[in-house]
């Protein structure tokens, strides 16, 4: 289904200075990961009985998979709304998604205390069907697989295999690729439905799954734009401004939609009174709201003269907003009591940075060795 567009690999040297830098970070974090498995979680991280989930879950899993939702967000446009013109963007988005999800899976393994029992997630006899986390885990595992299957044509093309043969497989993958993220990205919000006592009322809401879902699609478009502009810049390729411009209305709708939902919830469940009850959380709340509001307004007012720089900044703000929203729900506004504190430790952060580096490294390798980015000359 992607054959209607032509892609090319970037013929450039692999071993650049940034590449070596990321490699170094990765090596350092590999050492820390080894220490984590030898000495236990408490040795490397600042997680505690009060904050059992730290930056690994919040950033690497929740935010990381949200960053990786470009593939999902574009698939909605291309396959459901039938906007075929976005097809050139799909491969690099799929790659980011596949990498984001795979490495989120990897950080879960690092984070799991009793990883040797992990196979239990695949045993239906052990499934607890009440558990939101079970659904998230199964969906993420399945979706990671789906993403790589969707990405298969890229490899097939590289090795000269007829892409047409894969079409049936990718068709199923596309359907699953639409359902699974809808399920688990909303459920990443549902995970904290159970935190009735610990999550601040400004964030705890029955709208959590919906707010997560809407913001993740928005983040998906934002990431697609950011990534497209960045790779155009760094690989000295033409900007895909004409496509990204067409993406902006969807971002505006989603941005305003999210804000409306956010305030509907506060009004409907009579939570406006908490808006100014805690100075720090109030600041975080308004920062979060502004990060959704500002790019929406600017995108709207600049809709006639959108430039690569503006698209980049606004999209980046959306991504930042979605990230902050996730951090707020998982760490900032979630509190086991004001006697508890948490801030990631040096080694804990290093592991996260290592995982990000690994993502960048694999991205660079694949982009330079496989036809992922749209061909500059071959566009029909």
């Amino acid at each position, binding site marked *: *289904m992607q054959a209607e567009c032509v892609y090319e690999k970037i013929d450039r040297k692999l071993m650049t200075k940034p590449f070596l830098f990321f490699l170094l970070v990765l090596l350092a974090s590999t050492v820390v990961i080894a220490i984590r498995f*030898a000495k*236990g*979680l*408490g040795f490397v991280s600042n997680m505690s*009985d*009060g904050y*059992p*989930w730290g930056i690994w879950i919040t950033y690497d899993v929740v935010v990381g998979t949200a960053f990786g939702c470009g593939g999902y967000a574009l698939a909605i446009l291309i*396959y*459901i*709304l*039938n906007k*075929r013109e976005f097809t050139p963007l799909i491969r690099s988005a799929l790659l980011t998604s596949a990498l984001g999800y795979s490495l989120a899976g990897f950080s879960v393994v690092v984070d*799991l*205390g*009793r*990883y040797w*029992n*992990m196979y*239990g*997630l695949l045993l239906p006899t*052990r*499934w*607890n*069907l*009440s*558990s*939101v*986390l079970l*659904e998230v*885990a199964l969906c993420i595992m399945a979706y990671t697989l789906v993403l790589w299957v969707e990405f298969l044509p890229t490899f097939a093309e590289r090795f000269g295999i007829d892409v047409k043969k894969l079409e049936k497989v990718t068709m199923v993958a*596309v*359907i699953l690729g*639409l*359902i699974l993220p*809808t*399920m688990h990205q*909303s*459920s990443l919000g*549902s*995970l*904290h*439905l*159970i*935190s*009735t*006592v*610990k999550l601040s009322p400004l964030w705890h809401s*029955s*709208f959590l*799954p*919906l707010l997560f*879902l809407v913001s993740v699609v928005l983040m998906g478009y934002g990431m697609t734009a950011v990534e497209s502009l960045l790779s155009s810049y760094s690989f000295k390729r033409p900007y895909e401004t004409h496509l990204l411009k067409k993406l902006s*209305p969807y971002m505006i*709708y989603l941005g305003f*939609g999210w804000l409306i*939902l956010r305030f509907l919830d506060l009004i409907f469940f009579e939570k406006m009174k908490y808006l100014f009850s805690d100075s720090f959380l109030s600041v975080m709340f308004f920062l979060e709201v502004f990060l959704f509001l500002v790019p929406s307004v600017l995108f709207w007012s600049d809709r006639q003269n959108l430039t690569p720089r503006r698209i980049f900044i606004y999209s980046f703000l959306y991504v930042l907003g979605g990230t902050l929203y996730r951090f707020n729900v998982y760490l900032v506004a979630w509190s*086991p009591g004001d006697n508890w504190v948490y801030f990631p430790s040096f080694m804990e952060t290093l592991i996260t940075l290592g995982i990000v580096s690994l993502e960048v490294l694999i991205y660079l390798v694949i982009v330079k060795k496989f036809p992922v980015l749209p061909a500059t000359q071959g566009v*029909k």
Partner: protein
Amino acid sequence: MKEGKNVETRRDFLKKLFTGAASVAAVTTFPSLSLAKTKYYYPPDYWYGMLYDSTKCIGCKSCVVACKKANNLPPELDEYRIYDEATDLTASTKTIIKVYRSEKGDVSSFVKRQCMHCVDPACVSACPVSAMNKDEKTGIVYWRGDRCIGCRYCMIACPFEVPKFEWGKAFPKIVKCDLCLSSYLPKNGITACADVCPAGAIIFGYRNELLEEAKTRIKRNPDKYLPHVYGEKEGGGTGVLYLTSKAVSFRNLGFPAIPDESPAAYSESIHHGIYRTLAPPFLTVGALYFLLKRNNKE
């Protein structure tokens, strides 16, 4: 590019988007408004529980020591390594005595903390691999090491901050009170803490009977007790019930204000609203397949 084909007006798109969002919104929020899970509000008569009367506790910590002995738990060493200086429930402390002192210093009260053995436990609802269980025969909430994957979602979910994790170990466990189900209870028919208590501050028995007892105590001594049994309804009810004196509120003793609907029921009603029937995913698959077919033909 295929621009020009399949042009959709903005209006059409908005319509679609709105209907989609509205339907998801409906599915996600409706159940929370309409359904309240009351399955376990009145637990069976044979479920165990404990009653802690803070007005009787003398703070001797016999229960803390007895619990450690019965459950073979290591001490939480202080800097000189001579005291078991746990200041909170930890992976090696399943029960602890804490003290509340009012700011003026005129009022104080002890409080014993351990797993509350919720009637509808959040940890059991949260655990993806059924490692947290509520024993149907006794109502005891216990942990299974052969299943636990160490995801710590139970710790996130528990409103009482009970399950604890062995952070310092390469092969850690989740640790929480199991009413001595795996240690003292089978042989002695009572939990270690209740057995040693010299003041009768913590008594073990059937939860429903203890609730009656608690209410009787309040009725007989209306001047002494706060007329409220903590755990009767909090979070859907708990197996361990608490009484406190008139001068000390349950908030002072560190108990959270939890709505009567259990966090588990709240979460499940919304989440299952979407998934329990399995209908929405299947419907979506059908709709998508139809859309894809149509789009592909064009």
